[in-house]
């Protein structure tokens, strides 16, 4: 039982980062119809930048915030490459994000090398239902909860958030009322960068990151986003949590090396089950 609780909590923590990355994919896709495959690389940059900044340059808190802000800027730059030119078809933009991901990976190797990097996180552990749980994992869960609450409030209460939702809902009508849909797309890329950066900053102290961590991260995030129909951040949260828990249970009770395969298998199953719903949503 204690073991199960430990796996569940670490799964929820890992799944939270998938959900953050996935919700970034959703935010961009809703507005631009582009799947931003650079999202995983941006998360890695977040984790690695925080490691550098916390290594004597900035204190905890500031270092993490600076890393997340940098990822927001990086997200906008990826957006400029992907949708900066008016009329770029979403498929071309998707390929551009793949290229941007490779470019960012090359920059990661150049700046941080090929070895995994781990920034300092919250130290110590607490006992939850008899299981020893790292404080850092609880921080990940709490920060993800705050991030999703903020995201929900942003979209439902703020004028800018409503502008983003309107651009996603009906781009023609959005342009008609004076909303610059391209700028909204860039804002979505920036927001996705912030969410990806936050995921990287939160996950890196427990899961060392290197340049090749981007693929499993973006695939898991994409699986969570598909669970959310590429439209709903809330359903993406549940998808991410499910993936994280399934991965940790697989690692705990079966074999740790099957974690990614399990995520991919789940994504495949979800896509098959949800394909009809996705088509219906697209038609709407």
């Amino acid at each position, binding site marked *: 039982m204690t073991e199960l609780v430990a796996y569940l909590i670490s799964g929820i923590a890992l799944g939270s980062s998938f959900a953050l990355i996935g919700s970034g994919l959703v935010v961009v896709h809703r507005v631009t119809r582009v799947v931003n495959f650079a999202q995983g690389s941006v998360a890695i940059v977040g984790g690695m930048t925080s490691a550098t900044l916390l290594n004597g340059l900035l204190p905890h808190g500031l270092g993490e915030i600076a890393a997340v802000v940098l990822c927001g800027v990086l997200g906008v730059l990826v957006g400029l490459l992907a949708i900066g030119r008016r009329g770029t078809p979403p498929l071309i933009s998707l390929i551009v994000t793949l290229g941007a991901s490779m470019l960012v990976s090359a920059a990661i190797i150049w700046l941080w090398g090929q070895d995994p990097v781990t920034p300092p996180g919250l130290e110590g552990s607490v006992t939850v239902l008899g299981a020893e749980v790292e404080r850092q994992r609880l921080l990940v869960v709490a920060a993800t909860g705050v991030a999703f609450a903020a995201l929900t409030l942003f979209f439902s209460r703020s*004028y800018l958030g409503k502008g983003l939702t309107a651009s996603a809902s009906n781009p023609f009508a*959005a342009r008609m*009322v*004076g909303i610059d849909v391209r700028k909204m797309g860039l804002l979505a890329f920036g927001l996705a960068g912030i969410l990806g950066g936050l995921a990287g900053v939160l996950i890196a102290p427990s899961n060392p990151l290197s340049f090749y961590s981007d693929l499993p991260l973006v695939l898991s995030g994409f699986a969570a986003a598909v669970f959310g129909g590429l439209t709903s951040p809330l359903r993406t949260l549940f998808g991410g949590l499910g993936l994280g828990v399934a991965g940790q249970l697989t690692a705990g009770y079966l074999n740790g090396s099957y974690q990614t395969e399990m995520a991919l298998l789940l994504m495949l199953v979800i896509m098959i089950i949800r394909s009809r719903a996705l088509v219906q949503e697209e038609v709407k």
Partner: protein
Amino acid sequence: MLRIDDLVVRYGSAVAVDGISFEVGAGEMVALVGPNGAGKSTLINAISGLVAPHSGTVACEGRIAQVPEGRQMFADMSVEDNLLLGGWSIRNRDLGEVYDLLPDLAGMRKRKAGRLSGGQQQMVAVGRALMARPDLLAIDELSLGLAPLVVAELAEHLRFLNRERGTAVLLVEQEVTLAFDVCPRALVLEAGRIIAAGPSVELAQSETVRKAYFGDLAVAETMTGATAPATTEVSP
């Protein structure tokens, strides 16, 4: 207040608007009528800046807001959010004036726009355009898909807006009887060109207008109650 000079709009090699010139005065109501494919919607989209002209100029002293063909709601958002977004360009978030002019909207402000009837959506579309505090309201197919009673109510709202606020109206309409009834002056478009212009009462008797709508068939009753042969779906 609106001056169009030798406007040409092309889609590739196809010419949708072919050298059109006209003016709309402040507080004036002008109808733009013509059969399907005449270039009416393209012209109104060019006036609103949604379509880039190939040549010619659009000059307006004041703000233009458009009520688009098919309403174009933000379907999953509330009526209130739809209205608020209408004021995006001037950062207007004061709904009071629109609720005063269109009181029915206040009662449905929390409902999702996509779940409203066609007539209610058209009213939201008009309210959303009014949020931009326009000097000219460009309306594309007010009657499309709506029952006659609903259209009559909306037309009354337009007259009220024009009378009370002095808002100029450019009404693109296939339903020629409605257009001539609402607007004292009209322009008739065919194949991207203006083929007739003048007071609506005179155009209603014009042989040119009848030919534009019905070819060489003599359908005298057209202008005395019947409408152009538009195939529109009627909803409440």
